[in-house]
């Protein structure tokens, strides 16, 4: 903890008439250094799946967390992250994105036209739940970019629901078994019961969680079947085009 320099200066000088000047902001130069800094994502990177270009927003959204993590790993080893170190194994790196794009392309084929009212509703709901985060995203990718993002999210929901409808039904016994497992993991289950948190209050949330897991499992099994046929082309800085 430090004493604010400019306030200390105000007092030390005893210059009461300078009180107004003491309100000036501290210099950025006084603020100290960086704890960590992730360099700019190397680019340009392009991705095509089954002959269709992937939106750069998605490429950025997929790569940025991985690049940040890679930067931390490199820093721990005393090295800088570089395009070369990051793109060492392109197929392994991009496969999770390709899986998502294969899913999205299927959703676009099943629901080529989305009702505007449904997109509007989801966008409003998203804004309500993500607050300044969505606003920050909009400042970077624009209103059209956000609209495209909302449409993708709606299609992802629709297709997950469709896979969920095909998944085995979750039984009451499974819900209860999961409840017992969860309570066994809690240090003081009596405290939860005392708060009125019990099987009847938790069952709907547990059921929804199990149903989502079943839907995701069905969806992933479907993607597994599609992946061998997926054609992928990735353009990397300094590496040119890589295909598989």
């Amino acid at each position, binding site marked *: *903890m*430090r*004493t*604010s320099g400019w*306030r200390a200066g*105000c007092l030390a000088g005893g210059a*009461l008439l300078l*009180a107004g000047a003491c309100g000036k902001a*501290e210099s950025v130069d*006084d*603020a*100290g250094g*960086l*704890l*960590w*800094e*992730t360099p700019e994502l190397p680019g340009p990177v392009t991705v095509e799946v089954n002959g269709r270009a992937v939106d750069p927003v998605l490429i*950025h*959204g*997929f790569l*940025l*967390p991985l690049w*940040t993590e890679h930067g*931390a790993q490199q820093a721990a080893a005393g090295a800088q992250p570089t395009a070369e170190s990051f793109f060492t194994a392109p197929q392994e790196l991009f496969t999770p*994105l390709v899986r*998502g*794009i294969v*899913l*999205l392309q299927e959703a676009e084929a099943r629901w080529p036209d989305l009702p505007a009212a449904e997109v509007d509703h989801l966008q*409003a709901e998203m*804004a*309500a*739940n*993500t*607050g*300044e*985060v*969505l*606003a*920050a*995203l*909009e400042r970077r990718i624009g209103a059209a970019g956000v609209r495209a*993002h909302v449409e*993708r*999210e709606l299609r*992802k929901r629709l297709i*997950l629901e469709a896979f969920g409808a095909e998944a085995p039904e979750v039984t009451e016994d499974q819900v209860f078994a999961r409840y017992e*497992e*969860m*309570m066994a993991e*809690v240090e*003081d289950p009596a*405290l939860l019961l005392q*708060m009125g*948190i019990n099987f009847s209050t938790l069952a709907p949330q547990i059921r929804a969680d*199990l149903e989502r*897991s079943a839907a*995701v499992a069905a*969806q*992933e099994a479907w993607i597994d079947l599609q992946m061998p046929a997926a054609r992928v082309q990735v353009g990397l800085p300094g590496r040119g085009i890589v295909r598989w």
Partner: protein
Amino acid sequence: MNSFSPPDSQDSSTMKTILFPILGLVTLAATSAYHDTSGPYVDSQGGVWNVLPSPDDYPSYAAFDARFAQEVFTTRDGNRFQLDRKLSPVEAANNQAKQQLQQGFFNAQGSGNNVRAAVSTNNPVDEEFRALYPSIADVKAYIVGKVNIADASMKTKWGIDMVPTKGALWDSADTADIVGLLDEAYREHGLAGTDMMHAWSADSTSGGAIGVAYIGWPRLLIKKYLSFEGNILEHEIGHTYTLQHCCDGNCTMQSVLDTGALGGFHNYVENCSNQNHTSVMNAQKNRY
């Protein structure tokens, strides 16, 4: 002057009023010496607060909540915020149990989560926070873990990933109140080319608050508080987009932190906040 102030706040205000004509700027300078603050703060009824109210100044947490749960303060720069108070021992224990329970949910992700947009964040971390960890790598790992908690519902439900792309060594000012800390972090570090600023502090001078965000600005501050920083972060994100405290038990914007409500926002006109988050957000989107 307001009629609700706790003794130290109102007394200091009253005393200042009496002494001001005599001592003039001496009083102002002395006040500055003891608090790096963005105050005095004005409450919704026009009351002036030189010191932020704390639960410690009130006979009970319930008494504090009755007065401040829905209160909106304004800084001298016109920024508005609500007080997110520390928890009572009973509330803390209850929240820890709820947090353990929440960790039991699978929250299955799936490949759809790889189709997402990212928002970058700058993370100033003060010296008291850093001192709790043996290395910078540990600090970063901890913060990333907490961001991921707040981020989990954001990513799964909305396809947005908050990424801690930068962390800054922040040397926080002595004797700052929590709003002063937020202003200081933003003044010294700001967005730094990222989309949002999340400041992290373990400074002990918060006045009983565990986090703060200005209503409608992409900047917030999270205090090191038990194991709840991920929940605090999600709550403060709500404030940044004008959400105010609610009473709905499933809402993450309750005035008293509720780890069982992670990811929950109401979508109807709620009595305490008098807000429907959806309509509020739609109105706010027009700002951009």
